[in-house]
């Protein structure tokens, strides 16, 4: 397949780093403010809330398929954008960081979508958001935030490796 344009790869890598920085900031805030510092302690709750990890198998270095990786990247970002939106109202202390993170993820999704359009592999219709978790308590929303952001962090590490591999 055609190599991806350098500026797209460099911009994407910069966006990944921008989001990762914001992610760690948010995780630190959630830990400091709500003492929710171990995502692994929230796995059970994650299942019951339906907060799953977005697949990125086509971006793993061992089985890298650039075009399919792109669409997995976009679908994952689109899912996380929705999950972050569902967390709105989490708390005044955390809301500003969460708003910025959600905008950065949405903008990165636009960058990916535009590249898919340029390569002619973009589906004709923009994806629609699948059903998002509903949070019945402040705790669930905060725990959902920790889970979503830590999943997003793992997701971005894989994306970073793939993009770096293609630069």
């Amino acid at each position, binding site marked *: 397949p055609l190599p991806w344009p350098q500026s797209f790869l460099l911009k994407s890598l910069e966006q990944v780093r921008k989001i990762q920085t914001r992610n760690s900031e948010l995780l630190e805030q959630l830990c400091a403010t*709500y*003492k*929710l*510092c*171990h995502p*692994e*302690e*929230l*796995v*059970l*709750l994650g*299942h*019951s*809330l339906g907060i799953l990890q977005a697949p990125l198998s086509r971006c793993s270095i061992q089985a890298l398929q650039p075009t399919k990786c792109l669409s997995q990247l976009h679908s994952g970002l689109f899912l996380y954008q929705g999950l972050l939106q569902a967390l709105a109202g989490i708390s005044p202390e955390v809301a500003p960081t969460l708003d910025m993170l959600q905008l950065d993820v949405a903008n990165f999704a636009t960058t990916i979508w535009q590249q898919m359009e340029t390569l002619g592999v973009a589906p004709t219709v923009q994806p629609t958001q699948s059903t998002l978790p509903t949070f*019945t*308590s*402040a*705790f*669930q929303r*905060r*725990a959902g935030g920790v889970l979503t952001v830590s999943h997003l962090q793992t997701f971005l590490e894989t994306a970073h490796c793939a993009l770096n591999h293609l630069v």
Partner: protein
Amino acid sequence: ESCGHIRISVPIVRLGDPVTASCIISPNCSKLDQEPQILWRLQDGPEQPGDRQRRLHDGSQESTITLPHVNHTKAFLSCLVPWANSFQVLDQAELQAGYPPASPSNLSCLMYLTTNSLVCQWEPGPETYLPTNFTLKSFRSRADCKYQKDSITDCVPKDRQNTCSIARKHLILYQNMVVWVQAENVLGTSESPKLCLDPMDVVKLEPPVLQVLDMNPELVPRQPGCLWLSWKPWKPGEFIAQECELRYQPQFGGANWTLVSHLPSSEDQFKLCGLHQAPVYTLQIRCIRSPLPGLWSSWSPSLQLRPT
């Protein structure tokens, strides 16, 4: 379906008071083994079992814990179960502790003629550690402040300042009004003592501008140890009948102030003599509404003058 749910007797208590919480794990929480040991964690403290754990008639497990003295003003209490070689947090409740507000004290008000507003300030009293709202309340009254005529809209301070400004349109000048501060949080309410005042009796008056006159020696014979002064009242307060006071002392040496009282608020030519103790004297002037009641203005900026 969420597996665990915490219930707290009272989420906000007085600092040092006890609090009791219970965590119930529903039987249909698939991933958990049948009768998991329920644990508790306060903030990021160690995991500890509850005081009592029992099986409820519907098959769910309930653990109850009593924290004898809550000494965090804000803390998170988590309900967990062991999971692999770690834990799973099932629910988390926010605990807050603090004090009911003490009565606000030292309430005082000043009427500012430049902004046409009555500004009151107070001391909030000791920290309550809880969100506490202060409101400046007031109502119009007759001369003796006993009976409430009509109430004035509450004055809510801006971002936690202990001062509030009542706009001119809420004031009837030359009429008495009653003012007090109410403090309120989730543990209680308190009120400051009430003030009975007419805004015009608490005008923040500014001193006049003191000036020295350079008298023409041909017209006015030079007298040793004298100064010719003039002053005009502060413009915004010009309509207020005032009485003023002048004080002077040698510039150095820290001698006491000499006072000249009952002076008019406006003077074109005032001769001050007897200034023989030093080459340079420091002078200041201040005024007060008179004969109507009022507050002294601050002293004017000091003037260093060399008598003739």
